[in-house]
């Protein structure tokens, strides 16, 4: 005869669920979404961790679409962006930065290869003119089309792309890539008018455009007015790069001095080498550590034989020679002349001392304020006239760092400002997020994995060709690189919290859904917080 179970000594399984240990808690864990340093550093405002998350799974289309939320030109940016995200990447403190740029290029190329499309929004009947087809203009055009507004892009040159075509040498950014990504915009319904110089923004408004995006860029090289003999050959770097693109490469001679220390100087020097110069020297008035050019560019230039001459200014140029003044740095780090001079042989001096915008089209716009050659804008790129938006190098916002990426970011902001104007709403602001700093990570959990190096064209083959120097990642390498992402500050579903809780107080919601805390049982021990690899859990005082 089987009786009921013995009283008290024998218990029914799992009955402790009646004991709600959550009442012990003085602090509670909460899931947070912090701002990873890559995104914080991205001038285009890309959610890098977000799109890498999809790439990690091999879901490249979702990854590409996540990029396209912010940046319509991933194949271009995957080549030409100077990737401040990588400089900011927390993984630098573990081994090396995640190769975000390389993965972006992989995804951008894959998007082109597979012909992935973004659909325009439903037609709103609004019309917007975009002046300039550089990165800022294209970005604005794209985002406006996504909202359903009609867009016409006016381009003064014969071909589209602005600085992407006329400023960045082909060995860094092949033109077919530019063509392909621009073509995708055309397929979205963006209309392009080439060889169309816009000289008055108000005229466009008068023609019936509801708003204008001014994205004219900075196309004019700055001329410091170096004393020069009649026979001196002094060219402007932007002009050299443009004429090369127009199929009319200038003759630079064997010995070329490039004057300046920015990325354009590097582009000019490397171009000179490719055009036959045997001795290319970059002359810069300060030192390497304060040189504005990106390291990667400097290293590539040096690898290709370009020489650097620091603490030097050109005080005079004559046929076949230039006079250099040796500089020194004062207490505040400024370059000051020493009065010592040297001569250098130079067939050509190429000036790469920065560019200026031609803003004459804004002369008639009384409420648009221009000073120091740039237009004052609010944080949504709006000028004093809310219908006129200025993005890219012509904008005063971030003028100290004129990059493609910044222009793309501003293009999106400007497009949103216009849409907000049309809709009668506030322009969007990314909600502030606390930073996902390195000290919040538990890096133990990440696999040891050094960065994948992108293949590079051998130096010997670079000297006489404009073939692309940096190659793309293979599928395997791209996946590997994506998986190096530590997903700083944002859950990537590693199940650690779910596993390490001694009280089973974490509920797994399913793939892509993350987790929730079961506060009935959570004792607030904080192990989940300590062991979350990416710092996506905070411990906060228990509410009273």
């Amino acid at each position, binding site marked *: 005869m089987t009786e009921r179970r013995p009283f*008290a*000594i024998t*218990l029914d*399984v*799992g*009955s*402790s*669920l*009646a*004991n*709600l*240990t959550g009442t*012990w*808690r003085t602090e509670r864990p909460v899931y947070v979404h912090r701002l990873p340093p890559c995104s914080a550093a991205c001038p285009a405002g890309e959610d890098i961790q977000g799109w890498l998350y999809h790439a*990690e*799974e*091999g*879901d*490249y*289309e*979702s990854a590409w679409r996540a990029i396209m939320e912010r940046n319509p030109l991933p194949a271009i940016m995957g080549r030409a962006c100077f990737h401040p995200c990588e400089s900011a990447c927390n993984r630098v403190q573990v081994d090396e930065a995640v190769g975000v740029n390389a993965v972006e290029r992989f995804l951008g190329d894959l998007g082109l290869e597979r012909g992935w499309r973004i659909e325009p929004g439903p037609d709103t009947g609004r019309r917007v003119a975009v002046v300039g087809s550089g990165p800022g203009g294209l970005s604005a055009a794209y985002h406006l089309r996504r909202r359903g507004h009609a867009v016409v892009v006016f381009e003064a040159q014969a071909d589209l792309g602005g600085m992407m075509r006329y400023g960045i040498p082909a060995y860094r950014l092949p033109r077919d890539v530019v063509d392909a990504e621009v073509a995708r915009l055309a397929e979205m319904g963006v209309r392009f008018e080439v060889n169309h110089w816009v000289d008055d923004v108000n005229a466009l408004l008068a023609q019936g455009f509801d708003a204008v995006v001014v994205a004219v860029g900075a196309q004019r090289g700055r001329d410091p007015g170096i004393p020069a003999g009649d026979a001196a050959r002094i060219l402007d770097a932007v002009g050299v790069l443009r004429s090369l693109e127009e199929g009319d490469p200038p003759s630079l001679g064997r010995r070329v001095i490039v004057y300046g220390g920015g990325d354009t100087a590097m582009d000019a020097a490397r171009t000179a080498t490719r055009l036959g110069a045997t001795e290319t020297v970059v002359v810069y008035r300060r030192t390497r550590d304060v040189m504005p050019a990106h390291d990667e560019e400097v290293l590539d230039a040096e690898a290709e034989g370009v020489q650097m001459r620091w603490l030097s200014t050109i005080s005079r140029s004559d046929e076949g020679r230039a006079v250099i003044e040796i500089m020194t740095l004062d207490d505040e780090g400024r370059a000051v002349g020493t009065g010592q001079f040297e001569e250098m042989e130079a067939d050509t001096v190429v000036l790469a001392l920065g560019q200026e915008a031609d803003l004459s089209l804004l002369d008639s716009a009384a409420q648009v304020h221009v000073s120091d050659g740039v237009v004052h804008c609010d944080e949504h790129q709006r000028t004093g006239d809310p219908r006129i938006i200025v993005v890219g190098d012509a904008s005063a916002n971030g003028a100290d760092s004129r990059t493609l990426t910044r222009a793309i970011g501003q293009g999106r902001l400007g497009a949103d400002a216009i849409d907000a104007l049309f809709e009668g709403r506030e322009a969007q602001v990314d909600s502030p997020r606390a930073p996902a700093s390195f000290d919040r990570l538990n890096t*133990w*959990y*990440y*696999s040891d994995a050094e960065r994948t190096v992108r293949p590079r064209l051998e130096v010997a083959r670079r000297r006489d060709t404009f073939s692309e120097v940096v190659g793309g990642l293979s*599928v*395997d390498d791209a*996946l*590997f690189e994506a*998986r*190096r*992402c530590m*997903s700083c500050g944002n859950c*990537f*579903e*590693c*199940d*650690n919290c*779910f*596993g*390490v*809780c*001694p*009280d*089973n*107080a974490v509920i*797994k919601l*399913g*793939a892509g859904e993350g987790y929730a805390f079961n506060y*009935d*049982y959570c*004792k*607030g*021990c*904080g*192990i989940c917080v*300590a*062991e979350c*690899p990416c710092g996506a859990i905070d*411990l906060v005082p228990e509410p009273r």
Partner: protein
Amino acid sequence: MSTERTPVRFYQVGSFAVGNRLVELERRSAQSDPTRANSLTSGHRACAGCGEALGARYALDAAMRASDHQLVAVNATGCLEVFSTPYPETSWRLPWLHSLFGNAAAVATGVAAGLRATGRGHVRVVAQGGDGGTADIGLGPLSGMFERNDDVLYICYDNEAYMNTGVQRSGTTPGAARTATTEAVGEHPGNRFGQGKDLPRLAMAHEIPYVATATVADLFDLESKVERAMEISGSRYLHILVPCPLGWGSVSSDTIRLARLAHQTGLFPVFEARDGDVSAVTPIRHPEPVESYLRLQKRFAHLFTREGEVADRATVARIQAQASRNITRYGLLGRDDD
């Protein structure tokens, strides 16, 4: 959504984290499974951050998976027993028996014999106890079980003292550690340095088919050892280091960190042995000095100044020497001595 299948064998967090959405389901840990056994479920009365509660669920869930839930557990008296089964509630979700403090191994032997004798030999048996129940009061029955090679997996959750009774010294308490019976006073504060009661090596001396050590900091390692143990019949011994916030005087959130440091410093060698010989070690991945482990625990606070400087260099050096000896003995830096 297009998902590409590629042969890439790098998975972001590899096997360090509990789960990994990037690997196939069958290669994921038992703990990452939302339908895991939860052999020890919520509502138990362990302290916040208890390493033993965690270790027990890790081990038993893995054993449940490996045995297709055909498992019976026998428990020695101790924290695990007390916090899991105070009348009228139990946190266990598998057949579970508590008899006494010192007899878990023998009871498990009886369970295995009883199951076999009644035609249920496929049901597997796990015995579990703390370091007191295993190394001290239960050593005789444990040794007998080993010697007879009874078909039981014995798991010791080692928190290095009698925590249930208020943190008194046990046979596995490390040298210099303060406990309620080895106070940090006098000329040699804390526990005396002895030879230590090295349970895994004692188990190996019985030449049982499988002996392994693990910590709650390395789930995959722990689970794979449980699974390996469950593939074998005869006596098997698994020794799991489970930090105790109460007894060690550590922050409750540091439980896994401490277990990890115990391994990374070399103080707790993680290895496995077959038939009495070491067959594999889990190498140290990021070597750490013992100080970084000791500093986090109030039971070693007397070795440091208030500012965290080493106050007792000789003792810290002695502990470091123990770690170094383990590193050499087991080849924990991944070097093959052969």
